[in-house]
C-alpha cells in the first residue's frame, strides 16, 4: 500500500463533508474516486495533501502518518496534485511553469536539473513546441496538460488528479488516458477524480464511491457500476419513484 486513508472525517462548522472514509491505494495502481456532486471527493484530496486537517482519522503515506503535515511537506514526500481549476503562472513560460514543479517536488532539484526534468515532462505530454510560450496563452486542453506536466515534474510517487479530463475533446481524452497508463506503468500510483465516467472506468484498477461524505462502495469498475447502492446514489431510489407513480395513478 502506498497510501491508506483511515476513518477520515472532515467538518466545516456543522457540515460533515467527509464522514469516516477509509480506503487504500495500491502501489502502481490507478484508483478512481467517484460520487455525485458534493460527495466530498475534492475535500478528501485537500485532506490527503494537507490543505485541510481532518477532524479525526489518519492518512498514512508509505508507512508514515502524514495527517496534519503542511502541503509543502507532503509534496516533498512524493504526493503531487493536478488541480481541477488550473492556475498557471500566466506570464512565465510553459517551461518555467513546469520547472517550478520540479524545484519544489520530491527531489527538490536545482534549477539546471529541474529544467531537464521539465523538458522531459513537456516532451512526454506533447507540449515541447510550446515550451517558450507564456503559459497564459495556452488553450484549455494545453493548460490541462501543463497542469499535469507540472505535477509530474515533482516526480511524485502518488499523483492526485482532479478532473484533468474536463473540457477536453474525445481525442484529447484518449491521449490523456494513454498518459495515465504510461505513468502508472512507470510505478506512479494515481488517485483520479473524474466526472467522465466511461474514461475513469476504463483506466481505473480499483474504484471507491463516496456519497454524502461516506464510502458506499468499492471494488473493480464492474463491481461498483453494478452495485445497487451506487446506482441509487447516481439515479435516485427506484422504489420511491414507483410509490410516487402509484400515488398519482
Amino acid at each position, binding site marked *: 500500500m502506498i497510501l491508506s486513508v483511515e476513518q477520515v472525517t472532515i467538518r466545516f462548522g456543522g457540515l460533515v463533508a467527509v464522514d469516516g472514509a477509509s480506503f487504500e491505494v495500491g502501489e502502481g495502481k490507478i484508483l478512481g474516486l467517484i460520487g*455525485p*456532486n458534493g460527495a466530498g471527493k475534492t475535500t478528501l484530496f485537500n485532506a490527503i495533501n494537507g490543505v485541510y486537517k481532518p477532524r479525526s482519522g489518519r492518512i498514512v503515506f508509505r508507512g508514515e502518518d502524514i495527517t496534519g503535515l503542511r502541503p509543502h511537506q507532503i509534496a516533498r514526500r512524493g504526493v503531487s496534485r493536478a488541480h481541477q481549476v488550473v492556475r498557471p503562472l500566466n506570464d512565465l513560460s510553459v517551461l518555467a511553469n513546469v520547472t517550478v514543479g520540479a524545484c519544489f517536488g520530491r527531489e527538490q532539484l536545482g534549477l539546471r536539473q529541474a529544467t531537464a526534468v521539465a523538458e522531459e515532462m513537456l516532451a512526454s505530454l506533447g507540449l515541447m513546441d510550446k515550451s517558450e510560450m507564456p503559459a497564459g496563452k495556452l*488553450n*484549455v486542453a494545453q493548460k490541462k496538460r501543463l497542469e499535469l506536466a507540472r505535477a509530474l515534474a515533482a516526480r511524485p510517487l502518488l499523483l492526485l488528479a482532479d478532473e484533468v479530463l*474536463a*473540457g477536453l*475533446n*474525445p481525442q484529447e481524452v484518449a491521449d490523456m488516458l494513454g498518459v495515465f497508463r504510461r505513468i502508472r506503468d512507470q510505478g506512479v500510483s494515481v488517485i483520479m477524480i473524474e*466526472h*467522465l*465516467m*466511461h*474514461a*475513469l*472506468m*476504463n483506466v481505473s484498477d480499483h474504484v471507491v464511491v463516496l456519497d454524502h461524505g461516506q464510502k458506499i462502495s468499492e471494488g473493480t*469498475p*464492474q463491481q*461498483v*457500476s*453494478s452495485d445497487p447502492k*451506487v*446506482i441509487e446514489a*447516481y*439515479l*435516485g*431510489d*427506484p422504489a*420511491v*419513484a*414507483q410509490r*410516487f*407513480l402509484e400515488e*398519482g395513478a
Partner: protein
Amino acid sequence: MTKLSVEGCESGYGEVQILWGATLTLRSGELTTLVGSNGAGKTTLLRTVMGLIPAWKGTVRLDDRDITRLSPHEKAQLGLVLVPEGRQLFSTMTVAENLEMGATPGHARAEMRRSFDRVFGLFPRLAERISQLAGTLSGGEQQMLAIARGLMAKPRILMFDEPSLGLSPKLVMDLFEIVRTLKREGLTMLLVEQNVQMALAVSDHAYVMGRGKIEIEGPARDVRQMPEVRRAYLGL
C-alpha cells in the same frame, strides 16, 4: 404537435465545445425530461435554447418559427421561460417583488393579478411569506418561489434546471407533486433533473444526454427500464 424543437445544436464556452449536435423535440402539453451525467451538457443545452449563450450551429424552433438568434427577453415574450439552477432569486427583494419581476413579459404583466392568485393557490406557503425577503426563505421555499416566478411569466413552455438539487427527500416529493399538477393542467415542460428515477416516473418523454449529444430517447416509461441509462451515468 411539436412545440419546441432543437436541431443539431452546438455550443459551449469560449473555446470549449460542450454541445456536439444536440437534437430534441417538446410536444405540446407534454412533460419531457432531459437527464444525463455531470458534464453531459444539459444546462448548456437549456442556456442555448434560452439564448443565454449563443448557438454555434443548429436551430431552435418555437411553433415552427426559427428563434435561434432571439435574445432571452424576446424568447420570454414568446412564452419560453427558464427556472434556473440554483434558483437565482433576487435575495434582497420580497417574495411579492420577486413574483412581480417574473411578470415582466407584456402578456404576463396584463394578467399579473390573476397570476398572483394562481401561484398562491399552488404555493400557499408563499402567500404566508409575501413580505419576507427571498434570501431569508428556506431552501425549499426558495425553490418554490423560483418556480412561482417562472409561472408569473405566463409560460407556454416552462423549463426547469435541477429543481430538486439540495432539497430534503420530503421536499423533493412536494416538488414533483407540483410538477405533476402543472402537467395535468397541460403546461408544456422540459425538466432537467439529477433525480433520474423521479424524473422518469413523472415525465411523458425522456432524453438521455451524454458527452454533448442525445444518446437515448423514448417514452419515459420505457427509458426507465433501460440498462443503457445506468451506463450513461456509470460508464459501464
